[in-house]
């Protein structure tokens, strides 16, 4: 890929240079995008769709063979998790699933750029980021099965609850980042926040307010927008007449567009933006240019609003295939490694199926728990009344179902940082 300083980057102010290095200016075709995707020239890429490693002067990336293999494993396993979840929904085991198909690189790349103490605020589609943060995949299934509203402890994983109302979490992320500032937890060894959202969310008031807040308070937050081209049925053209990353400029902070199907570029760009945030240079908007290869959720039917050819074109830019090609070509992995990952994915899938089906419904009376910090006369009275009502039947329906965890086979876990952590962390 030819790299030159683009005209738009030259227009960026000097204060933005540290965070926003000169952007690549390459023809869309060379950048690996379908000509009809509306992709302008500026796109940061470190691994082409053909699996060719390219350098970018603004984002040097030293990555070992082991780290590469780790990324590949992450990508394959989260795709498998996703595939299984869709199947479980089709079988009636989940009420809904929001597929991440096609967005694995954006999520694994950015997720692996996080340090343990960094905080992530996801939408409802960040299964790959959840994986990187060590959240039990079953917890994700719990939510979509209707067993809980999430239920993991955000503080344990530094991964907030899924947020379903579009864009709300960007403000929470910004406020959290303001807390980091007040705690003095900034600097090289400090903390940063990442807020995930999609192209549809860019139109939400909350996202724009979060941009204002983060900008004027110089908050250590990275806005990571996965532009997957579609907000259910609405194409990106319905949200914006300019590339999304350019929105940042109007708010006074840098924006960059990265090839969202390139896990290395997503890793490098996010890592740089997080570090800039830690070092007091304020927010960055990262637009991960990607594609929602599946439906919006399992209730959606994309054939009603988009052409099959578009998907076919994007399949040539698959986020996993290019890593596989590079691993093999560079000799970083051999066939047995690839086979091992496939086998591990199979085990993960089998475990998810089994554990999901074994997941018990919560007790009906658990609906009355965790609403207030302490006793509440009205909630408590209703709980008591409903328990009495249930007890009036003979089938013991009010007896809380024992919360028996499913038998778990050896589980592939994503704990740790996948080897991408730099020094400076406790």
């Amino acid at each position, binding site marked *: 890929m030819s790299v030159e300083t683009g005209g738009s980057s030259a227009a960026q102010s000097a204060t933005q240079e540290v965070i926003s290095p000169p952007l690549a200016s390459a023809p869309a075709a060379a950048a690996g995008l379908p000509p009809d995707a509306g992709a302008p020239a500026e796109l940061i890429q470190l691994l082409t769709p053909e699996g060719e490693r390219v350098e970018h002067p603004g984002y040097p990336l030293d990555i070992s063979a082991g780290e590469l293999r780790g990324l590949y494993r992450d990508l394959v396993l989260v795709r498998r998790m996703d595939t299984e979840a869709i199947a479980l929904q089709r079988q009636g085991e989940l009420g809904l699933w929001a597929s991440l198909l096609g967005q694995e690189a954006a999520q694994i790349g950015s997720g692996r750029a996080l340090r343990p103490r960094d905080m992530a605020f996801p939408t409802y589609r960040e299964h790959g980021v959840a994986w990187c943060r060590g959240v039990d995949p079953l917890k994700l299934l719990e939510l979509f099965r209707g067993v809980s509203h999430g239920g993991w402890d955000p503080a344990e994983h530094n991964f*907030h609850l899924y947020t379903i109302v579009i864009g709300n979490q960007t403000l929470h992320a910004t406020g959290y980042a303001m807390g980091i500032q007040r705690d003095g937890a900034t600097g090289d060894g400090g903390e940063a926040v990442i807020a995930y959202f999609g192209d549809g969310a860019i139109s939400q008031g909350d996202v724009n307010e979060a941009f204002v807040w983060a900008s004027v308070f110089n908050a250590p937050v990275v806005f990571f927008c996965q532009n997957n081209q579609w907000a259910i049925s609405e194409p990106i053209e319905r949200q914006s007449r300019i590339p999304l990353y350019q929105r940042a400029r109007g708010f006074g902070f840098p924006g960059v567009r990265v090839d969202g199907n390139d896990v290395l570029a997503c890793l490098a760009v996010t890592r740089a933006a997080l570090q800039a945030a830690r070092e007091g240079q304020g927010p960055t908007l990262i637009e991960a240019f990607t594609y929602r290869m599946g439906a919006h959720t399992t209730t959606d039917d994309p054939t009603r609003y988009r052409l099959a050819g578009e998907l076919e074109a994007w399949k040539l830019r698959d986020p996993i295939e290019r890593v596989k090609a590079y691993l093999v070509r560079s000799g970083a992995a051999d066939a047995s490694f690839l086979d091992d990952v496939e086998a591990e994915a199979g085990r993960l899938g089998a475990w998810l199926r089994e554990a999901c089906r074994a997941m018990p419904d919560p007790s009906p009376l658990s609906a009355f728990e965790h*609403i207030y*910090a302490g006793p509440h006369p009205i909630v408590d009275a209703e709980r008591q009344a409903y328990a009495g009502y249930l007890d009036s039947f003979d089938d013991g329906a009010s007896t809380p179902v024992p919360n028996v965890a499913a038998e778990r086979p050896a589980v592939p876990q994503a704990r740790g940082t996948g080897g991408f952590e730099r020094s400076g962390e406790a």
Partner: protein
Amino acid sequence: MTTLTLARALNAGLRRALEDDPKVLIMGEDVGKLGGVFRITDELQKDFGESRVIDTPLAESGIVGTAIGLALRGYRPVCEIQFDGFVFPAFNQIVNQLAKMRYRSSGNVALPVVIRIPFGGGIGAVEHHSESPEAYFAHTAGLRVVACSGGPEAFTMIQQAIRCDDPVIFFEPKRRYWEKADVDTTASAAAAWPLDAARIVAEGTDLTLLAYGPMVKVALAAAAAAREDSRSVEVIDLRSLSPLDMKTISASVRRTGHCVVTHEAPVFGGLGAEIAARVTEECFYCLEAPVLRVGGFSTPYPPSRIEDHYLPDLDRMLDAVDRAFGF
């Protein structure tokens, strides 16, 4: 005891909270250098710094949304919504996020955020400055909703709200901001009357008159007037609108057999409707008349030149008392 306006009592309470807990923050529009449009946060930024008393951009959803993030980080933000009618841009963050986070997280996350809202009419304001939106919030599980009526209690109530581990919507009767009372500024919030408890502010034997916020003063005047007609009216300041202190309310109604509820908000779907239903359920055999409601009309808040007709006054309250006894 110090003679203070309600505004100064709230200011003193906020100051005490800032002194007591370094995690307490104040945030809102114009709360810093200006001290708020009602001066409730007067001089607090000067004394506690811009990091703790934050002049925010003008976006209410942003105020509440970032307060949630700060609370997730361990802070206890106190947000000021400048006027009642301006809370609605933040409604989504309050109802979908603030209220539900503990539940959604299976109890893992607490959001000790206070949202102060000057509410109610009677100051001749332009539209959207005289609303009483409390019922929207009382309807939402996960929130506590309280209303102070005067300075002596407001001083400790605001501190209790800040100490509470639940989100609290804290309504302040703006037309009472300038009314003076003796306030014990050495009072301990921990030892004060509980935040979720109603309080009998005038004892009586014949009728229970329930009020909160700006209407407590009117209710007390009505009780005094009724006394001249040899009717003994008990006035209860509800203080907490969610949860409702039904124990205190029902105990009173069982004694008096009559109940009138008053608020500035429209009667349809208002707190009075909920109270009437509950009093009917709990005190059915003691009631000698239906529970009556005296509130704002089921109209938008009118232009201020006729707001005196909209706001329940002494005479409308006495009229309801008469109707209750004449049933």
